[in-house]
């Protein structure tokens, strides 16, 4: 039974029954006790993605773009069809605005090294926030070291959300780019990106949004958001590893110099002078991750079949349940997430180190993440070395949260007797 039928037969809080959805994920059949609460690090893969990718290799595989023969034409068609799926997933207006990369990290590095190095000058400012993942910090530090831009950091407010007022005061004529997360991976805080875009554009700055956590959880419409760049990573939207997406407005992409040089991205090469392809191919040097792109396309189909509004409702309901359930655990402090949080519960269990918490949880077959979640500056700002983080996917239900709560009590007992 495919996810499309699940939706109609078992209407749950998100219009689908996570127990049925779970059957689409082979990992749970092979690990029957597993309570997987680490989808923010990486999501599990549905059968359709695993089998569809394997089937592609079995029936249609060949290199893309350069072959006259049928297999290569079929392969090219499927690869470019995956690009169309991504275009629809983001509601971009033009398929040429979709660049396949390895992951979010590479998408952001591409913008920094191509757009940033070509169009920014010493003293120009890039504004990020305290909520950022290392992937949206370090590329800008590398660019700072290379050309002398200034990195400006917008603070969080007392509740853990982005401090919009403070953010606004940091914008000026020198601001050339605002690069912020759509949703914080360490706390689940949703950032009011529509406001961020409006403020940044008012100052003539471009906007890059890190959609790693938002893409799997919310409908995303880059035209409605009005952002200039949007990045997300395949392995968090139930797709394969090795594939990610950079969306960029066509006008910007076509002015940007290449990022890596090689095959596929050129029009003509001579030793003296090389002419480059138009976007997106200009930015896809070498043989791309063809099977990864096709697998990502299948994953997006899976998401669309469940329904993106349904997924959001499912995660909202379950997040609410989780917040209530964790509030009952003594000594547990949930990290703030401003006005809204989605799909992520990050907490400190008083007196017990996150490593020890997650070790005990693992003994109870509950998989969560412990540590700084690649957001060390935020952790330091919060006065923590790390937290324990439980994060949700379409396969989780209330029973998983109950198992988490039970295991947390056991951890408390073990270390705080």
């Amino acid at each position, binding site marked *: 039974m495919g996810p499309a039928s699940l939706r109609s037969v078992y209407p749950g809080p998100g219009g689908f029954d996570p127990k049925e959805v779970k059957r689409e994920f082979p990992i749970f059949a092979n690990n029957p006790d597993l309570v997987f609460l680490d989808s923010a690090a990486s999501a599990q893969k549905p059968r359709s993605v695993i089998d569809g990718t394997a089937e592609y290799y079995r029936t249609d595989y060949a290199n893309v773009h350069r072959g006259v023969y049928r297999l290569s034409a079929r392969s090219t068609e499927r690869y470019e069809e995956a690009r169309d799926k991504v275009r629809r997933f983001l509601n971009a207006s033009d398929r040429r605005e979709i660049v396949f990369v390895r992951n979010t990290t590479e998408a952001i590095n591409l913008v920094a090294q191509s757009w940033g190095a070509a169009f920014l000058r010493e003293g120009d400012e890039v504004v990020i926030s305290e909520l950022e993942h290392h992937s949206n910090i370090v590329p800008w530090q590398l660019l700072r070291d290379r050309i002398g831009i200034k990195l400006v950091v917008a603070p969080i407010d007392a509740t853990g959300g982005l401090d919009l007022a403070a953010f606004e005061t940091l914008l000026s004529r020198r601001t050339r780019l605002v690069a912020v997360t759509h949703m914080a991976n360490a706390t689940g805080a949703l950032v009011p990106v529509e406001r961020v875009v409006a403020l940044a554009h008012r100052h003539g700055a471009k906007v890059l949004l890190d959609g790693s956590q938002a893409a799997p959880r919310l409908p995303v419409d880059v035209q409605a958001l009005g952002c200039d760049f949007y990045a997300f990573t395949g392995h968090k939207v139930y797709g394969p590893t090795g594939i990610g997406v950079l969306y960029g407005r066509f006008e910007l992409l076509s002015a940007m110099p290449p990022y890596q040089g090689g095959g596929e991205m050129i029009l003509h090469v001579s030793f003296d002078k090389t002419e480059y392809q138009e976007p997106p191919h200009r930015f896809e040097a070498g043989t791309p991750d063809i099977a990864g792109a096709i697998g990502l396309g299948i994953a997006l189909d899976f998401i669309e079949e469940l329904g993106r509004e349904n997924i959001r409702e499912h995660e909202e309901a379950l997040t609410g349940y989780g917040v209530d359930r964790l509030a009952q655990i003594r000594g547990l402090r949930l990290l703030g997430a401003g006005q809204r949080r989605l799909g992520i519960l990050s907490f400190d269990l008083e007196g017990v*180190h*996150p*490593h*020890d918490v997650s*070790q*005990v949880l693992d*003994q109870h077959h509950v998989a969560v993440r*412990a*540590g*700084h979640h690649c957001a*060390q500056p935020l*952790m330091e700002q919060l006065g923590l*070395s*790390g937290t324990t983080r439980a994060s949700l996917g379409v396969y989780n239900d209330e029973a998983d949260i109950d198992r988490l709560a039970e295991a947390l009590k056991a951890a408390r007992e*073990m*270390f705080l007797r």
Partner: protein
Amino acid sequence: MMDLRELYQDIILDHGRHPRNFRKIEHPTHFAQGHNPLCGDRVTIYVTLDGDRIADVSFQGRGCAISTAAASLMTEVLKGKTTAEARALFAQFHARATGGEPAADLPEPLAEEMDRLEPLTGVKAYPARVKCATLSWHALEAALKGSGEMVKTE
């Protein structure tokens, strides 16, 4: 998968809750900071050498039960030992904590100290936690080599 109580033996829980020698030495002859990139934890090791002998050793820092207990037990075991003995103990401990072959037998008095460290070698069944058990030792090694250096576990 073994029982979790083999990882968190009582002695570890005890040292984790009540670490010994958890203090700063004001004027150490040697010190170094260790850093576990997995969790961001840091530990600082302070040593006062008297000739080649460890007259005093202490630590400070934030860590999980394993890393705190490991640092605590290490300081207890090392006080009064020579730096050569400290290195021999670390070699033996490292081998056992990673499930490797211990290089050579330790002489009798050291072998007894090794017995005290034995509970920590439960980490060998948990590869992600080996770093927690060896962080303070790596920092000690760095402290004895130079001074004031930063190290991370391998």
